[in-house]
């Protein structure tokens, strides 16, 4: 069975790239424009991995990291944060996430990390 990966990414080009890369690796990938859309469409099964793009002045992604990590059901789902904003490395979003990857990233590293988080 294919592993399910949900990606929240507002930049369509990056979303396409990530989707292409992950599909190549035989994952079941869904891309969502933002957390609001994601929450509305989250009828299907929970993913095996959540990839979230984090913006500087946006608390949505922080909220989803926090909610998921506090919820018994979702706590075990790994979260990979990707961001153009390195921000402070002590940022709560980054601390809560299982891994942080700055943009632009190396695709090999990215895919290795995804595989690692899913294993």
């Amino acid at each position, binding site marked *: 069975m294919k592993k399910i990966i949900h990606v929240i990414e507002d930049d369509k080009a990056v979303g396409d790239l990530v989707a292409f890369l992950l599909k190549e690796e035989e994952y079941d990938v869904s891309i969502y424009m933002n957390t609001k859309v994601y929450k509305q469409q989250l009828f299907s099964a929970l993913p095996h991995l959540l990839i979230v793009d984090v913006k500087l002045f946006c608390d949505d992604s922080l909220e989803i990291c926090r909610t998921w990590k506090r919820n018994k059901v979702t706590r075990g789902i790994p979260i990979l944060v990707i961001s153009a904003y390195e921000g402070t490395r002590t940022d709560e979003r980054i601390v809560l996430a299982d891994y942080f990857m700055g943009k*632009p*990233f190396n695709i090999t590293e990215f895919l290795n990390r995804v595989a690692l988080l899913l294993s």
Partner: protein
Amino acid sequence: MKDLFPRVTNRVFKEMFLASPLAGYICDKAGVLLAYNDAAVALWGRKPEIGLEKWSGASASYYADGRPMSLDAFPVAMQPEAGVTSYNEVIIERPNGVRRNVLVYSQALLDEKGEAIGSHNTLVDITAYKQQDSKQALLSAIVESSDDAIVSKDLNGNIMSWNAGAQRIFGYHETEIIGKSINTLIPSRLYWEEEHIIQQVKAGKNVDHYQTVRLTKSGHEIPISLTISPMRNGAGQIIGASKIAREISEQIRNEQLMKLNARKLETLYSIGKVISEKLDVKFIIQTVIEATIRASIADIGICCYWMTENDGRVTHSVAIGGTACNGNVLENPYRLQELLQGVFADRKIVRFDPLSTNKDICSVFNELTKNGLPTINHCLSAPIYSADGELTGVILLGYIEREIYEGADDELIYNIASQVAVALENAKLFEEVNALSLKKNEFIALASHELKTPLTTIKGYLQILERYEINQIGQRFLGKALKQVDRIEALIAELLDISRIEAGRLDLYYETFDISELILDAVETFRFSSTTHQIIINDNQHIMVHADKQRIEQVLINLLSNAIKYSPESDKVYVTVETSDTAVTVKVTDEGMGMSLAQRGKIFTRFFRIEGTSKMPGLGLGLYLSKEIINRHNGHIDVESELGKGATFYFSIPYTQQDSDAIKTLFD
């Protein structure tokens, strides 16, 4: 006596006359000297010839006022009627020139029939008494002519004497005050002083230059300086005290004036200092109001400043000082601004006196003095104008006492307000510049992040392409494109770091790691990317440091890439690690072009590029960033180099950061 008298013979009388301590002599009717006694000889200083000299035995005679007196005018010659004793004061002169004041008693000698046959005369020497008298007169004259009040009192504190100076200072005439208690002159709250003074006097002690306050007849209190000495009688007993009181109002006024002037200068100076050193509105107005309150002895002071922001909102800054506010705050500065519109017109200073005449301003002060503080009764206000002539603030000074209020110096306060206006104008400009600089930093940060997103896609697709079977030319171009992507990435990272440093937000994330391992890792990446140079590392052990691993790696990579970049003719770069008790030092040595002393001084500044290297890529930010990072680690970075002889860049960082959190907070 009746029984006794007949027995007194002529011999007895004669002996009495001759032995008398009083000078006496007898003349006949013509004035010729018939007899005199030893006392007369002593007084005259000579023995006149009996039967020859007339009227007087003295060498010369003078009237009491000093005019020469002829012998015929001598009182003895001017014999009065029989039975009448005349006495006159004359001055007689001895042969040696000594003059004596004498009283001349002359009485006619009568025969049995009652006819005058001569005179018997007695001279009483009053010289000593006269001298005492003139001394007294001199003293009196001195006392009377003195500007100081000279007063004597007995031990009960009753006034015994009073000079003209006392009348001038205290207003009482001698006749009004003599016999009255000295307390008449003392404010009741200071009665204790008199008790203390009397104690001192009774103990025979002086009180010198005692500064106090006394009451005048008109009820005013005046500052005086007292000197009090005990007065003794001839037997040495203390019978009272003499007081010399000097009015020191003038002196005190001068002292106050000097203090005031000093304070004014100090105020202007401190305000000047604030203006030149600080550009923070809140700080300026607080310092200014406190200094102004000190200089004008106000009980309360308000400095209110308002400015219109870009969006049209008006913001107010208020500073309050003085003893009469007790931490109360001005709740509605906007109202104060409204109240003062049009108040000043073209006047420099507006006084609200009494303050109750202006209900609105009055309520402003009442708000500040609520909770039992004394009411402000007088107010002085000075406008603060902006450069374009708009009323942009105000200084309000409140006073409880009228007297102090009236003494406030309009000119000084107006000058302060003008200086404040300049300072605030500068502060405003400074804030604008700061805001713009902040915007610039925000823009750089935002732009850099925005660039990263498309770069992610470009890099991603290029890397995907790399995995496909494409021809050799395609592979080569792909490699070039990816290399340029890395360069853009590096440039963006530098820009971001600069904006972080500018904003004071270069955060360090401390961890403990092996710096030798970090060096090996960094050198390893260069072995792959740089084919031109060989990097040689000296052998080293595990060296654990507590630092920001990523940032230290950044510095290391910067130094290594510089070493390679600026030594194109060479093929070796050396990395050396040295340790001391407290720090580790990493040296990166190249065999490149080196640099001059002047270049060394500037190498760590922003955007600095060594001349002739403009074709080399880079923004000139790498070493600047490295220096910031090492400084933030409480470390040291520098270069040793000579032109044409290569360069050694080195940095040292302590193994551990003393209280690193505290240091971090200090910089953030």
